[in-house]
């Protein structure tokens, strides 16, 4: 895992000192809010509906136990005892007081963390596959590249006033767990003739105008990564629409100019700046890579794992659902669900964070990951230790066996916290999860991704949910639009709007009708919701959603 160099440390500390001074000057009146706002946003501090909110970056979703414990400490000491993990692999604290924020940032710096560039029109936290370095299907660990990008983009002088925010995601596997096609730049590590390189997508994004990224380079040699990304951002920095913030993202630039023209301009800019990259970046990369070396895995006897698996159905179900294949057969990747039915998706209490930190330390080579699906991952555990891990998770109320199932819902903060929201999303997620828990249908339904956003900005990724829910405000009343058939994987698809929206108290019954329709339509239990949808098309699902219309037509 990466540890701050003296340079990183000094940079982050200086930033904290500057911000401490800026906060003091805001409080004593020497800075106006107009002057202060861009400064606080540069340090991840938002003002939301009920309080300030501090968004802390978890670069490429990777944490060690010390960092997780520090997040717990911050939650307990300066917040209300919990934190909210987001779809951007960040953690948000919902209740910090202005005067405490410099101390919180210092506490983060103590463990190599910061909130820099988690807001504003800059290059944001680079996100990555949460199974990176552990997945059985991986070509290379993408995190060293992500860390290189973090270092390059942090305070990059050319990119502090971009037309809009800019998000990069990277995966090292063919199975895309990082939704790279929905990012401004998506990178997939690939191998060609024994050499590593990248497939580069550009112009993806959700929000008001959802787009799937297009391939701008099908094999970018590894050593060209920084100059090529810099070329793309630089081309967009000039072309991007600063006149209209809804048209400022690179997806619109790509759409307006065409991918071929963007590729041509990027090549041109690349050839200008490439000579400036003397190879220092590749040396830095090698140093970073050394810090991401795989842990020393231990072989342990598996008897107690097999015994527990055979004897305990609760453990067995958790293993079958929450545990994924590791690159070593005797190891596993554990997904800890932060989606207990009825709980707030992505929230963890300070005590739960401490438990997860202890598990990482005791059983997981000190590594934790935050997934964009708002769960926590132990990427490297011996299968032999799974019974002990499961027991500890049960005690901490973290043992829900529902990863990838109907109650594993992504939900953005929505109207309960977010100043931009048009409707609530958290209670909708809570009610759907609780309802299917009551119906005992979750396992019958199988793999299903429901994703909920509280406004058009789509932080809840609703466009790529198999079922997407978008909360809107229709004449002062919450109204929920459903999209169907979205997919955030390597076969990324934007979902199709099903029809008119539903009122708050109609949305859970509407989802229930969709699920009942699916259960009736599927060929057998192995056909997933998405597969059925793709086979039948939207019509039968629409009929289930809007039975009155069907009846009217039949009459």
């Amino acid at each position, binding site marked *: 895992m990466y540890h701050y160099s003296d340079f990183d440390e000094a940079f982050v500390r200086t930033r904290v000192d500057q911000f401490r001074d800026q906060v003091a000057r805001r409080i004593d009146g020497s800075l106006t809010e107009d002057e202060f706002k861009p400064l606080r946003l540069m340090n991840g501090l938002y003002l939301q509906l009920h309080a300030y909110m501090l968004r802390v970056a978890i670069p490429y979703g990777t944490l060690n136990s010390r960092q997780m414990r520090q997040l717990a400490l911050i939650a307990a000491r300066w917040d209300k005892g919990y934190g909210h993990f987001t779809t951007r692999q960040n953690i948000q604290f919902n209740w910090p007081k202005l005067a405490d924020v410099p101390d919180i940032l210092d506490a983060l710096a103590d463990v190599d963390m910061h909130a820099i560039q988690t807001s504003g029109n800059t290059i944001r936290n680079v996100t990555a596959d949460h199974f990176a370095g552990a997945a059985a299907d991986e070509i290379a660990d993408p995190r060293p590249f992500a860390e290189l990008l973090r270092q390059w983009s942090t305070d990059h002088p050319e990119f502090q006033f971009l037309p809009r925010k800019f998000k990069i995601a990277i995966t090292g596997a063919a199975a895309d767990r990082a939704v790279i096609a929905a990012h401004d730049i998506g990178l997939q590590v690939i191998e060609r003739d024994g050499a590593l390189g990248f497939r580069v997508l550009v112009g993806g994004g959700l929000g008001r105008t959802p787009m799937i990224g297009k391939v701008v380079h099908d094999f970018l040699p590894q050593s060209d990564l920084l100059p090529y990304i810099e070329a793309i951002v630089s081309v967009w920095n000039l072309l991007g629409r600063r006149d209209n913030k809804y048209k400022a993202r690179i997806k619109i630039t790509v759409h307006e100019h065409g991918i071929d023209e963007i590729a041509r301009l990027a090549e041109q800019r690349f050839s200008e700046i490439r000579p400036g990259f003397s190879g220092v970046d590749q040396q830095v990369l090698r140093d970073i890579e050394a810090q991401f070396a795989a842990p020393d895995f231990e072989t342990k006897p598996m008897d107690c794992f097999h015994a527990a698996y055979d004897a305990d159905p609760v453990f067995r179900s958790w293993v079958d659902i929450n545990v994924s294949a590791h690159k070593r057969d005797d190891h596993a990747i554990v997904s800890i669900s932060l989606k207990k039915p009825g709980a707030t998706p992505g929230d963890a209490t300070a005590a739960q964070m401490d438990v997860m930190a202890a598990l990482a330390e005791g059983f997981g080579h000190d590594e934790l990951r935050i997934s964009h699906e708002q769960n926590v991952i132990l990427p490297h555990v011996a299968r032999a230790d799974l019974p002990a891990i499961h027991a500890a998770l049960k005690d901490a109320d973290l043992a829900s066996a529902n990863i990838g199932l109907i109650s594993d819902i992504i939900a953005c903060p929505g*109207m309960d916290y977010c100043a931009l929201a048009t409707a609530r999303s958290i209670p909708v997620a809570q009610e759907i999860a609780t309802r299917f828990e009551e119906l005992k249908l979750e396992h019958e339904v199988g793999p299903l991704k429901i994703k909920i956003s509280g406004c058009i900005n789509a932080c809840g990724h609703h466009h790529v949910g198999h079922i997407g829910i978008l909360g809107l405000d229709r004449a002062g009343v*919450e109204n929920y639009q459903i999209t169907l058939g979205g997919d955030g994987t390597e076969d990324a698809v934007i979902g199709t709007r099903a029809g008119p929206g539903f009122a708050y108290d109609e949305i859970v019954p509407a989802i229930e009708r969709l699920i009942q329709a699916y259960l009736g339509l599927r060929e057998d239990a192995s056909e997933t919701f998405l597969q059925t949808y793709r086979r039948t098309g939207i019509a039968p699902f629409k009929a289930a959603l809007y039975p009155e219309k069907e009846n009217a037509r039949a009459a």
Partner: protein
Amino acid sequence: MSREYTPKVITANHLMLGDAIWLTEDDTWSRDIARAELLTDEAHADMRMLFAKGQPQIAVGPYLAEAEQGALGPVPVHLREVFRTRGPSNRDHGKQVDGAI
């Protein structure tokens, strides 16, 4: 003749705590919307906004929000404003437990 003015209150976030506050008739800020001044005249509302904007050490981002006269004082109209008077619905935090002091 001017159009009929939809009644409003002036609200903002508190500089130090970040929570919702409302401007009262006696030039103070309250955490209880019921104590807010209900503005029924556009020219007067503009004047009060000028006052609110001159209080940067207390009030961040003041704006006019629609409100109605309720039994105890002004009540919010828009859903978003309703949330600001009480706090999130998923946890007992914010004004619903801290009180609207």
